C-alpha cells in the first residue's frame, strides 16, 4: 500500500507532569479516510496524547502536523478550527444550560445537529432540556453529534462506547462507517478490542509513552493486539491459588434481609461469612451502587434489615457502619482520598473517627501506618500529596485506610477499575489474604473474567433483585453474563 499523505500526524511528542513522564516520544499518523485505533494499557499515555491533539494541553517537545502543516494549539478552540473535533470521556457540555444553549455556545446550527442525532434515534430529543437532566449515555451521543456537526476532518473519540448499551454502540459504529464513506477520518481510543477489530483499519499501540507498533487490524487477532500492548504473552489476571478449604466456614459477618430502597434495590437478601469473598455481578445500573450505599450507611433502606454478627443494626450514617466494622472502598476512589494531604495522613484518618480520639494521636500510629504502606507496597515517592500518586497507588491508599483502622467486613466497589494489571494482581492477592485472616469481603467488579479467580461465591443482581447465586469455582464468564441479563442459566 503506497503511503497516503498524512491528514494528522505527530513527531516525537513528549510530555511530563512534574516528575511523572506521560509521553516519551510518540510518532502517530492518521491518513485521510481511515478509522484509526489508539491502543495501550492504562498509563501508556493515550489520554495525554488525546489532550495534546485536542489542544487541552501543549506538548513539552515534538510537533503536530495537520495536512502536512505544523500547527500549535494553545486552546481547544484552535484544534477545532484546525479541523479536529474531540469527544472526551466526560461530555464537554454545561450542566446548567439547555442543549440548545450549549449548541449556541459552540455556534452550531441546531438543524444540522438534530440531523446527526437522528443516527442515534434521538432526533426528537427535547433541545430545551437542561443537560443535567439528561442521562449520561444520551449526553455522550449529544456530544458526538455536536462534534460531527462541526464538520471536522478528524474525529477524536475517547472511549466513546464506554457508557453506551450494545444497541447504542451499534448506532455509533454505523455512523462511523458512514463517516468513513464520506472520506473523513476518525481516531478511536478504546479498551474494547472487538470494536477495534470490527471498525478500525489500523491501530497504533502505545506503551510507556512511546508508539511501539502500527498494526493493520486485518492481519492480526485480538490476542496479538493484547500482546503488543503488554509487550509480553498474556497470562490470566489473578492466578494465585485459592485455598478453598476453609472459605465459608465462619460466622455470618454481614447479612441483608429483604433490603429494599425505592425501585433501585428490591428485596435483596444474602449473607457473607467471615473468611469469605462474596462476589457481586451486575450489568451497569442494576442497583448495585445503591446496595453498597445501603450497606455502608450512606443511605437508609426503605424496608428490610442489615445484620452484623447476627444482630440487627440500623445504620444512620457511615459512622454507624464503620463502628460495626463494616467499611467501604467506594467505586470512585477520589471520594475516599484527601488529595492535598500526604499518604500517611490519608491512611490515618479513620483512627480519629470517634470524638474520644480527637485529643492526641495514638503512640502506635506511625507503626500502624508504616505497616500498611509496607503490606500494600505503596510507592511513596510522591507521598507528600496523594493527588500525585498513580491511580493504582491511590487505590491502595483507599484500601490501606482500613488496614490501619481495622475492620471486619470490607465492601469493595469495583476496586480495580482503571488500574494496571500489576496492581490489580496485588489487590486481588491482598483481598484473598485478608479473607484468609478472617475478614468478610463483598466484592463488586465489572470485570467478569476475574470473579471466578478471586471469589468464593457469587450473587448476580438484575433490576435490583438477586436473581442467581453461583459457586465461583464453577461459574464462567458466560454463565454469569447470562444470569446478569436476567436469563435462566442452563445447567
Amino acid at each position, binding site marked *: 500500500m503506497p503511503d497516503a499523505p498524512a491528514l494528522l500526524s505527530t513527531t516525537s511528542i513528549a510530555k511530563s507532569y512534574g516528575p511523572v513522564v506521560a509521553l516519551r516520544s510518540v510518532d502517530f499518523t492518521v491518513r485521510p479516510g481511515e478509522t484509526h485505533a489508539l491502543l495501550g494499557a492504562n498509563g501508556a499515555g493515550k489520554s495525554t496524547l488525546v489532550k495534546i491533539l485536542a489542544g487541552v494541553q501543549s506538548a513539552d517537545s515534538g510537533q503536530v502536523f495537520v495536512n502536512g502543516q505544523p500547527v500549535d494549539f494553545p486552546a481547544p478552540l484552535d484544534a477545532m478550527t484546525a479541523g479536529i473535533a474531540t469527544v472526551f470521556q466526560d461530555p464537554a457540555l454545561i450542566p446548567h444550560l439547555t442543549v440548545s444553549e450549549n449548541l449556541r455556545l459552540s455556534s452550531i446550527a441546531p438543524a444540522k445537529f438534530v440531523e446527526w442525532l437522528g443516527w442515534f434515534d434521538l432526533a426528537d430529543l427535547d433541545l430545551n432540556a437542561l443537560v443535567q437532566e439528561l442521562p449520561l449515555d444520551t449526553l455522550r451521543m449529544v456530544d458526538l453529534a455536536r462534534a460531527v456537526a462541526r464538520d471536522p476532518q478528524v474525529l477524536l473519540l475517547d472511549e466513546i462506547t464506554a457508557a453506551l448499551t450494545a444497541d447504542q454502540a451499534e448506532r455509533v459504529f454505523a455512523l462511523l462507517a458512514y463517516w468513513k464513506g464520506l472520506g473523513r477520518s476518525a481516531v478511536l481510543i478504546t479498551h474494547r478490542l472487538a470494536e477495534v477489530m470490527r471498525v478500525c483499519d489500523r491501530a497504533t499501540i502505545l506503551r510507556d509513552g512511546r508508539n511501539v507498533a502500527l498494526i493493520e487490524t486485518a492481519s492480526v487477532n485480538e490476542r496479538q493486539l493484547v500482546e503488543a500492548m503488554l509487550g509480553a504473552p498474556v497470562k490470566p489476571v489473578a492466578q494465585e491459588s485459592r485455598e478453598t478449604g476453609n472459605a465459608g466456614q465462619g460466622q455470618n459477618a454481614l447479612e441483608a434481609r429483604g433490603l429494599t430502597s425505592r425501585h433501585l434495590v428490591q428485596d435483596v437478601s444474602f449473607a457473607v461469612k467471615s473468611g469469605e469473598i462474596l462476589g457481586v455481578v451486575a450489568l451497569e445500573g442494576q442497583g448495585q451502587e445503591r446496595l453498597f450505599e445501603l450497606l455502608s450507611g450512606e443511605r437508609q433502606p426503605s424496608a428490610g434489615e442489615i445484620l452484623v454478627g447476627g444482630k440487627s443494626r440500623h445504620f444512620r*450514617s457511615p*459512622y454507624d457502619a464503620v463502628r460495626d466494622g463494616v467499611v467501604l472502598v467506594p467505586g470512585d476512589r477520589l471520594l*475516599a482520598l484527601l*488529595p*492535598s494531604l500526604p499518604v500517611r*495522613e490519608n491512611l490515618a484518618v479513620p483512627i*480519629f*473517627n470517634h470524638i474520644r480520639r480527637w485529643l492526641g494521636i495514638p503512640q502506635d500510629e506511625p507503626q500502624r501506618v508504616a505497616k500498611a504502606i509496607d503490606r500494600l507496597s505503596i510507592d511513596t*515517592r510522591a507521598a507528600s500529596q496523594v493527588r500525585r500518586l498513580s491511580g493504582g497507588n491511590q487505590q491502595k491508599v483507599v484500601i490501606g485506610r482500613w488496614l490501619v483502622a481495622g475492620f471486619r467486613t470490607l465492601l469493595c466497589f469495583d476496586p480495580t477499575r482503571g488500574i494496571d494489571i500489576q496492581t490489580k494482581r496485588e489487590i486481588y492477592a491482598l483481598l484473598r489474604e485478608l479473607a484468609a485472616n478472617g475478614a468478610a469481603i463483598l466484592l463488586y467488579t465489572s470485570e467478569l473474567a476475574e470473579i471466578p479467580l478471586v471469589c468464593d461465591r457469587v450473587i448476580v443482581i438484575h433490576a435490583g433483585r438477586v436473581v442467581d447465586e453461583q459457586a465461583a469455582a464453577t461459574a464462567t464468564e458466560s454463565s454469569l453474563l447470562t444470569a446478569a441479563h436476567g436469563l435462566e442459566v442452563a445447567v
Partner: protein
Amino acid sequence: MSQSPAPTTAKNAKSIGLTFRLLAFLAAHPTLILLGVLAILVLVAGNIRPSYLTVAGLRTTLLQAAPLGILAASQTILMLTGGIDLSVTMIATGAAYVTANQSPNGAAVAILFGILVGLVAGSANGVGVAVFRVNPLIMTLAMSGILLGLFTAWTQTILQGSTQVGGLIKTVSAGAFWDNRIPYSVVVWAVLSLLLIWLLRRMGWGRLLYATGDNEVAVRLAGVRVWQVRISAYALAGVLGALAGILLAGRTGAVDLQLASTFLLPSVAAAVIGGTSIFGGVGGYAGTILGALILSVLNSILTFLNVGQAIQQVVYGLIVLALAWGYAGLTRRG
C-alpha cells in the same frame, strides 16, 4: 529514569537548575519568604523612624498584632475546613461588651461571660453551616447582623452600666513586664499560639480539620461525623474571637460597637498571606502569625509615613495582593 533531564532544561541547564532549585526550596519552605518580608518591613520601618527599632517601638507593633493574630487564628481554623467567619469581629465586640458589663463582679467572672458569648455565637454558626448546610459566608454574615442588632439594643437595656473593663484585664491587655519590655498580651498570644499549633499538628482533631477541608466526603466515609468537626471548629473560632475582643477592650479601656470592626478584613488577609488556602486543607497557624505581624508592621510604617488614610488603604491593598500573588505563583510551581 527519574534522573533523565527533561528536554527543555537541556540548554542552560546549570543556571536554570540553580534558580529552579532555589525556587523549589522556597516553595517547600514558604515561611522563609514571609520571614524575609517581615524582616525587610521591620528594617524599612526602622529606616523611616529609628526609634521603631527599640523595645518601645516594637512593643507597639506587638500590642497591635496580638488581637489581630488571635482573630486571624479563628479564620485560620475555619479556612482549613473550607469555611470562614465574617462575624468574628462582632463576636469580639459582643464579648468585650459583656466582659465590661460584668467587670464589677471581678475579672474571672467577666472573662468567663465574655468567652461564653463567643462559644454560643460560634456554635450557632457551626450548627447553621454543619447541620443546615448554609454557606459559611452567608451564615456568618447573617450572624454578624444579628449580633450587631442585639448588642446595639442591649447596650440600652440589659447591658447598661459599666462600659469599662476592670484593672486586671487592662493590665493584661495593655501592660508589659520586665521593665515594661514585654507586653502581657503578647504572652497570652504566644500561649494561645503554641496551644493552637499543637492542636493542629499533634491532635486527631487537627488532622480532621485539614482532612475535612480537603475532602469532606472522604472523611465521612472514614466514619467521622463531620458535623462534629465543623461545629467544634466554629465554636473554638468563636471563643478565640471573644478572647481577642477582651484584649481589645483592655487595650482601649472602654468598649464601643465599632471596637473590632476594622479587624475583619485584616484577619482574613493575615491568614491568606500566611499561606492558608481559603478553599481548605492547606495552611497552618505559624504562617498566620507571620501574616499578622507583617500587616501590623505595615500599619506602623504607613502611620509613620503620615501619608493619610487614603494612601494607606491603597498601599495596604496592593501589598496584600502582591503577597498573595507571589505566594500562589511560588507554590503552584512546586
